């Protein structure tokens, strides 16, 4: 069929149709992506979803259980929990996304370099990464934020340090795999400089692995971020961060469980959606 008439060929299916087909094949992933899109919308335009201010204090209506006026109830100063959770979406997700991005960029590049060049660079970096890995993640987060002080920048630093080794290892093993392949050998024979091979060939092939890890690790970062906030080491009140709201709700847990219930549910739903999406993506990659 060298020169077939294009009109007689079946038309490529429409993009929407393809989307619907994928959604039918992977309903769990479709659900996960839908939730994530909604979350991004909430993060971008919180005012659209929550009419009340997350900071407005109303002592007369303190510790109210959920009602029509306050969907998720109010906290000990009468602030609307619904507004706080909605407005907290942006802060919480932004912190996780940026920390993970820093970890992915630094870990990805250093891991690729380490795997590509090998030798003493690899030895040295590997040893450093081992040291970071010898601390359990949460404990590392507690030390960094606790010692440097509970500020958002320190929180981001702590989360990046915790996740750097993950990206380092993935990128390193990817690079080691690429180095042995014939196209790298061919590029070397053509006399391409090592840095060009690294940038143009190896890094580009390592990138998908790193992107995949970004999605797989996101729910875990979210939980550590919430845990540090809960310990009082994350975002500080009155800023509405999910972990920070949980920390405030802790002392009134038996009196007003709704303060803790809803931000925790927000973490759970977000992590659940991310896990569904990540798993489906991983499956589709494995199948290929």
């Amino acid at each position, binding site marked *: 069929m060298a020169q077939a008439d294009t009109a007689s060929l079946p038309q490529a299916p429409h993009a929407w149709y393809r989307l619907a087909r994928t959604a039918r094949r992977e309903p769990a992933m479709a659900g996960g992506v839908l939730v994530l899109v909604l979350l991004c919308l909430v993060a971008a335009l919180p005012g659209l979803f929550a009419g009340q201010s997350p900071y407005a204090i109303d002592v007369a209506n303190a510790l109210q259980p959920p009602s029509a006026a306050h969907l998720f109830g109010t906290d000990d100063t009468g602030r609307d929990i619904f507004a706080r959770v909605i407005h907290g979406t942006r802060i919480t997700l932004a912190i996780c996304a940026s920390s993970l991005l820093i970890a992915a960029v630094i870990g990805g590049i250093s891991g690729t370099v380490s795997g590509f060049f090998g030798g003493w660079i690899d030895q040295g970096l590997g040893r450093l990464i081992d040291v970071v890995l010898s601390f359990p993640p949460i404990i590392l987060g507690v030390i960094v934020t606790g010692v440097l002080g509970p500020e958002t920048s320190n929180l981001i630093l702590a989360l990046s340090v915790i996740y750097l080794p993950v990206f380092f290892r993935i990128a390193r093993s990817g690079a080691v795999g690429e180095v042995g392949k014939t196209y790298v050998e061919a590029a070397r024979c053509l006399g391409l400089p090592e840095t060009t091979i690294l940038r143009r060939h190896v890094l580009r092939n390592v990138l998908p692995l790193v992107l995949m890890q970004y999605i797989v690790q996101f729910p875990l970062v979210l939980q550590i971020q919430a845990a540090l906030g809960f*310990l009082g080491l994350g975002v500080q009140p009155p800023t509405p961060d999910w972990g920070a709201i949980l920390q405030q709700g802790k002392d009134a847990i038996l009196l007003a469980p709704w303060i803790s219930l809803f931000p925790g549910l927000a973490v759970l739903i977000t992590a659940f959606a991310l896990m569904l999406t990540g798993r489906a993506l991983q499956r589709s990659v494995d199948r290929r």
Partner: protein
Amino acid sequence: MTRYLARRFAASIVTAVLASIVVFLIVRAVPGDVVAQMLGQTSDPAATQSLRAFFGLDQPVWMQYGRWIGAALQGDFGISWTGGRPVSTMVVDAFLVTLEIALLTLVLATVVGVPLGLLSGIYEGTWPDTLIQTFNLLGLAAPVFWTGLMLLVLVSSALGWSPPLVYAAPGESLSDNLAILFLPILALGLLQAAAYSQFVRQNVVSALHQDYVRTAIAKGVPARIVFFKHILRNIAIPLVTFMGLMLTQILGGVVIVESLFAIPGLGRLLLTAIQTRDYPVLQGALLVVVIAAMLVNLGVDLLYRVIDPRVRLA
């Protein structure tokens, strides 16, 4: 084997030493030391000077490190700057509390996670599998401290029961001890059970798709024998090693539930030491955590070699 052992051990020691230096430096990177905290705003230089000399803070950092690590190697971690108790007894006491939680959590996670994982793996793609996988994902997605809080609300509103407020050692009152540890262990255990079940399922499913299993089924080997001899025996090794991985995970998770339920374990010791800038306690507790995690990893690695002859020969 001996050569491998020696190399592995040497690498661990190098990492431990580097980690101890990192621990020491992090602690000293803090703006404001214990002296500034003790004297507050109105400190006169003479008092600051003498107190800093008393705590050894006037010496160069490398000398402080040398003194500390030298004593630590002999089991002397110094004296707490805030309570005056020897750090080694504080750390050992706290470690035993944490160890009890960790081991009981491990038991719970194994008892719940392994059967669930086997079940969902064998019934891959059917409704029990979907149900168990949903449980797994929910368990992994829920923040562990939140699960703990919600369990607390649940038992106190439904059963009218709440755990004792003051920690009791198992030696003092075993029933009080278990009562206070019940909820944190349940919360941590559910999370780890979900992780374990997920892992077991993956292993069962990939074993089920192996040629030798298909052959066994095709030639009419009874299902029970296929399960025990062909599947279980082959996945036993990763399942055992996963327990080591979980133990280090639990060691981290314990920090949060301890602070939530006011249990005097290593996690709470670390947190208070950070808040009060109690360097010797912070260093001692951190070093113990790092070394414990390292020993678990080393143990798992060795176990792996002992039970799997293929790895031993390689």
